[in-house]
């Protein structure tokens, strides 16, 4: 009935059955291998990006959570007296404390890359919990997925500026949402002595050389500090990092370990 079926000449059939020619030209073979290598390279790049932003981030976040837990557990079990106040020059006048539990104690300067505090920022996520280690070296501190403390700046609770840095485009992206902080948001820093409650106040965008943001009085070098500030620095714009995004907070409260954690993070602290 159909023309296609019947009209095919009979002598075509054997030709179709012939095995395909095995030999390919040298050029064709080289081009083929080159193409496969290019495809493989492309797949590897995509895999690396997937690893960097997903798998590695998840592993670092888990590591951070377990590091923070073991730090908090150590602090909870040790009943040692508060560490002696570090001898830092302070222009602070002796005035009645504005804090419920009196003057916040100050940690002695920790060793390089040592994790000495835990950072809680509910605005960054209800389970946000990262360690703060001494120094801002990428390899030994920041690439572990936590925050790093500018070692030239003050310690938590001190008059002056407690300045920390963290990634927001990889390595767990701890400060991913640094631009979403709202005035009045709480930033908690836990040390062996207790919990320092900072309240977010303002942000600023500077160049990578804007070191004024970590001065005791930000952008006012030489001025004698009165406030107890926290400064968060990270890169901006996301994935480009030609600028730095800065978030400032001021210490509004502090709670000794014996009094228990602030209600907002009570479920997060400890193991």
């Amino acid at each position: 009935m159909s023309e296609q079926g019947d009209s095919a000449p009979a002598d075509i059939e054997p030709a179709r059955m012939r095995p395909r020619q095995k030999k390919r030209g040298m050029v064709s073979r080289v081009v083929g291998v080159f193409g496969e290598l290019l495809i493989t390279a492309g797949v590897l790049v995509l895999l690396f990006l997937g690893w960097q932003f997903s798998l590695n981030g998840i592993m670092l976040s888990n590591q951070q959570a377990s590091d923070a837990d073991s730090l908090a557990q150590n602090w909870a079990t040790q009943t040692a007296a508060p560490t002696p106040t570090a001898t830092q020059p302070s222009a602070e006048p002796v005035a009645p404390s504005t804090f419920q539990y009196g003057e916040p104690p100050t940690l002695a300067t920790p060793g390089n890359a040592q994790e000495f505090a835990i950072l809680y920022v509910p605005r960054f996520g209800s389970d946000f919990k990262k360690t703060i280690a001494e120094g801002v070296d990428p390899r030994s501190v920041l690439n572990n997925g936590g925050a790093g403390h500018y070692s030239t700046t003050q310690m938590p609770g001190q008059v002056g500026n407690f300045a920390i840095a963290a990634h927001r485009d990889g390595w767990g992206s701890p400060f991913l949402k640094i631009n979403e902080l709202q005035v009045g948001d709480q930033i908690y820093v836990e040390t062996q002595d207790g919990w320092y409650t900072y309240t977010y106040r303002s942000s600023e965008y500077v160049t990578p050389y804007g070191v004024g943001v970590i001065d005791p009085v930000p952008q006012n070098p030489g001025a004698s500090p009165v406030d107890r500030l926290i400064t968060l620095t990270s890169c901006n714009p996301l994935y480009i990092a030609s600028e730095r995004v800065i978030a400032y907070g001021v210490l509004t409260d502090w709670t000794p370990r014996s009094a228990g954690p602030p209600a907002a993070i009570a479920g997060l602290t400890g193991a």
Partner: protein
Amino acid sequence: MYAALWHILPGPVWVRILILLVLLAAVLYALAFWVFPWIDDLTAPVRDVTVDQ
């Protein structure tokens, strides 16, 4: 390249597929736990988050 790999593998098709899957898993594991961390470390200082002089 990949065609040659397929021809080198012994056994029937399902055995070859099995071997390829195992090879693929091994390659992915090596990438995730050795190669990518190494590259990551090489490129560590590129995306900086700190203010500096």
